[in-house]
C-alpha cells in the first residue's frame, strides 16, 4: 500500500491531510452538547478514526506526527495542561494501535483482533496515558477516575471501532487510487 519511496513532500502532504481530518473530527465532536449522564471529561474520541487510518495506511511516523498536530490544536484551544494530557494519551494509543495492526504490514497473517477490539484497547491506552499525565501535573494520583474511564473506553471504543470497520475498507480502496496516481505522477516526472 505504501509507495516505494514517498518523497518528503508527499509525506508532508499526507500528514497534513490526515492531521486536518483528526483536528476537524475532534472539533466537530466538541460541538456536540455535553451529555449529562456521562462522567465529566468522557469523550467519544472520533479523531481516533483518523489516527487509526493513519497508523494502518501511512505508518507509525506519520501517526506520531498527526498526534503531535492534534495535541497542538488542543494547546491552542484548551491550554498547556490539556496539551500534555492529549499528547500523552495520543502517544499511548498510537503505540497500541501500531502494535496491534503491525502484523498485517509485514505481510504475514493479521492479528485476530477486530476493529472494535483494537479501538477499545487503544481507547483504554489513551485514557491511561491521559490519566498518567493528569496525575503527574496535578501532583496526586487520580486513580479514582480509572474505572469509569475504562468503562467508557469500552463503550466509546466500540462505537469508534464500528465506524472504523465501516469506513476503513472504503478509505483503503480510495487511498489505493490516490497512491497509484501519485506513482503515475512520479513516473511521469522521472
Amino acid at each position, binding site marked *: 500500500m505504501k509507495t516505494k519511496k514517498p518523497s518528503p513532500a508527499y509525506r508532508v502532504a499526507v500528514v497534513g491531510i490526515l492531521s486536518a481530518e483528526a483536528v476537524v473530527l475532534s472539533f466537530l465532536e466538541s460541538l456536540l452538547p*455535553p451529555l449529562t449522564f456521562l462522567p*465529566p*471529561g468522557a469523550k467519544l474520541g472520533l479523531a481516533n478514526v483518523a489516527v487509526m487510518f493513519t497508523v494502518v495506511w501511512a505508518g507509525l511516523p506519520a501517526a506520531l506526527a498527526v498526534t503531535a498536530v492534534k495535541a497542538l490544536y488542543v494547546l491552542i484551544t*484548551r*491550554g*498547556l*495542561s*490539556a496539551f500534555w*494530557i492529549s499528547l500523552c494519551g495520543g502517544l499511548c494509543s498510537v503505540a497500541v494501535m501500531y502494535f496491534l495492526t503491525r502484523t*498485517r504490514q509485514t505481510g504475514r497473517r*493479521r492479528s*485476530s*483482533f*477486530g*476493529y*472494535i*477490539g483494537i479501538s*477499545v*484497547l487503544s481507547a*483504554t491506552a489513551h485514557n491511561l496515558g491521559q490519566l498518567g499525565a*493528569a496525575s503527574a*501535573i*496535578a*501532583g*496526586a494520583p*487520580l*486513580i*479514582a*477516575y*480509572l*474505572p*469509569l474511564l*475504562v*468503562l467508557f*473506553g*469500552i463503550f466509546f471504543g466500540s462505537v469508534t*471501532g*464500528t465506524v*472504523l*470497520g*465501516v469506513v*476503513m*475498507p472504503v478509505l483503503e480502496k480510495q487511498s489505493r487510487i490516490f497512491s497509484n496516481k501519485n506513482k503515475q505522477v512520479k513516473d511521469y516526472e522521472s
Partner: protein
Amino acid sequence: MKRKIITKKDIWIFAALLSLAVAAVFVPQLFADGGRRAVVIYNGEPVLALELDKLDAVKTYTFASVEVEIGPDGARVVKSDCKDQICVRSGLLTKNGDTAACVPEKVVLKIVSEKTAQDVDAVVY
C-alpha cells in the same frame, strides 16, 4: 482476508476490561471504613484535611482560582477558572474515593477513608 469488525478475541477483551473496571470500583469499598475525610491536594502537597462528620456548617476554601466547599454532607468544587470545568461538573463528592481534580490549577479534592488519610493528618488546619 479483510479484518472483521468484531472477533472472538474482542469479546475476551470486553470481559477482561469490564471485570477490571468492576473490581476497581468494588474492591476499595471492601476496605473502606466509616470515617470520611475531605482532603485537598494543591501543587502535589496535601494542604487541607477535614473529617466530614465533625463539621457542622459548610465552609468555603480557595486554592489558586479554585473554590472548594466542604460541609457535613460532602465536598465540592464550586468555582474554577479552568476551561473544561471537569472539577466543577464532578458535583458533590460524598463517598470514599470520590475525586474532583482541576488539573490546570493543580488542585485535587478527594474524599478518603480514615486509614488512607493518616498520612495527611499532620497538615490539618
